């Protein structure tokens, strides 16, 4: 059976799209609802994944506590990043977040003792002693598989990831409809006006940044469980921009645009590997891997030209001053 028609393959694509949904939901909360330009989002994913793995391997607290701490650590990192920077003008804040993303990756690469260094999590307990952090996850999956009578690990993962994604999407959709969410939107529109109406703009931005970071932390844990191994190279800046593409593709300021953007993005990204016909057949597989990025770039350009509001956005809103 070829990969195009393989259920396993598309289940895998869907799992990744689900993880990206949770990841990009963070950008949607931060940018789509609060106007924050966070270009270092991948760092929070890395912090979530690494904290979970490190706590699991190096302490007796277990993987589930590790996951909880991972999400909290990502949120705390959001607060720490925000405290000195959120008072800056938005473009300066954006620059600092890019630097933050790279700093986290470099620390993960060089602090071998803590993270396993460039070798990744296999080295977590020191070299020569291969380590795993996902034993509890495997047990959870086989228990769930038994309970639901599902044999395929990919299908199980798909169910788990998308259940989490949908729960988080619902929670965020409910949250942005509250008066709290209305204050976030007012800050997105005009932060001086919000301040002139008595809103503590700084605190709301901090909360939004931390919430988005926590979502990236959740995505980081799922990423770690899905691939059973990761290294600093998994957290390239490109991942942050995937999240931004998903948000823009789906529609800025729309919670349910995120899963749609993720699925479209995931299908384009995965689908390009089947381009084995001419003229793509003249390229070797490594070269073809770049074709997908070119294709996504073209889709983005086309979108900005013909549908700048994204798949789910409202054009009238785009045109307001």
């Amino acid at each position, binding site marked *: 059976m070829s990969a195009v028609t393989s259920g396993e393959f598309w289940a895998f694509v869907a799992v990744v799209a689900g993880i990206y949904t949770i990841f990009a939901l963070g950008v949607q909360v931060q940018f789509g609802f609060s106007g924050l330009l966070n270009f270092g989002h991948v760092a929070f994913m890395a912090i979530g994944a690494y904290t979970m793995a490190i706590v699991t391997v190096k302490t007796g607290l277990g993987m589930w506590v590790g996951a909880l701490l991972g999400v909290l650590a990502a949120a705390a990192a959001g607060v720490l990043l925000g405290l000195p920077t959120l008072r800056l003008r938005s473009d300066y804040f954006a620059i600092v977040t890019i630097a933050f993303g790279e700093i986290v990756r470099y620390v993960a690469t060089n602090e071998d003792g803590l993270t396993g260094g460039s070798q990744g999590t296999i080295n977590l307990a020191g070299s020569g002693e291969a380590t795993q952090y996902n034993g509890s996850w495997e047990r959870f999956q086989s228990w769930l598989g038994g309970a639901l009578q599902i044999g395929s690990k990919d299908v199980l993962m798909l169910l788990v990831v998308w259940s989490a994604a949908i729960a988080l999407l619902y929670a965020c959709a409910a949250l942005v409809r509250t008066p709290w969410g209305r204050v976030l939107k007012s800050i997105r529109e005009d932060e001086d006006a919000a301040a002139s109406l008595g*809103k503590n703009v700084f605190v709301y931005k901090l909360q939004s940044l931390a919430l988005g970071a926590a979502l990236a932390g959740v995505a980081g844990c799922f990423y770690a469980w899905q691939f059973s191994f990761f290294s600093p190279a998994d957290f390239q800046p490109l991942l942050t921009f995937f999240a931004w593409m998903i948000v823009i593709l789906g529609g800025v*300021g729309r919670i349910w645009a995120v899963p749609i953007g993720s699925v479209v993005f995931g299908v384009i990204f995965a689908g390009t590997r089947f381009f084995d016909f001419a003229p793509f057949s003249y390229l070797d597989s490594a070269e073809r891997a770049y074709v997908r990025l070119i294709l996504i770039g073209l889709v983005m350009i086309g979108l900005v030209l013909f549908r700048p509001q994204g798949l789910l956005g409202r054009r009238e809103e785009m045109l307001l001053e």
Partner: protein
Amino acid sequence: MSAGAILEVRGVVRSFGGVRAVDGASFAVAPNSITSLIGPNGAGKSTLFNIISGFLRGEAGVVLLMGREIQHLAPHRIVGAGLVRTFQTARALSRLSVLDNVVLAAAGHPGERLSGVLLRRRAARECERDARERASELLRLVRLDRHAGDLAGTLSGGQRKLLDFARALMAEPRILLLDEPMAGVSPPLRAQLLEHILHQRDELGMTFLLVEHDLDVVMRASDRIVVMSAGAVIAEGTPGEIRGDQRVVDAYLGSRP
């Protein structure tokens, strides 16, 4: 005269580069009054507004709100202390509904805190209902009730001014600073807006400080007028006194050689 003042500005200075935009301005605003700040362009009125409302820091001098120094406070804290301002260019929150623009200004809404969203749901719901009711009334007052459900970004410039006014009232300030409230508002609506301001003063005991270029409105509405020129207060008095003041005429028209 400053003993009973709700707002007092004393010796405030602020420069931009080499220009002293506000150069030792001093005046006081009596409670339950309408005071207008007038002066030619560049006199420092808007800069002074920004300093009073906490958006700019003065380099010298004091700003007292009900006797309390507020210059070190952030803008949102000054709102909490009872002083609200509007902007010269109306600041409609474009992608919020007109109604939400006004509801947003409700003070002390438990639903605006994450803890309240999670733990005080009933209080938040009740506050939201009351706020919506009050906001709807205010929108009727400025005749924007027909647009309550529209996005604020679809309003005209004059309508945005009215929305800003309604929103500022929603915050229930003790003193309201209005930066050119009449600019861009159509003449019939101007008369109404003026009536609302007078009504708020007479019936609800509110205090207003206006920057306004429409001298007709200023002369009719003001209890006192403060005239600024080149960053300093050059005259202060009732409309009658200001009308006959030679320094004011000079500041506006240029002095005779």
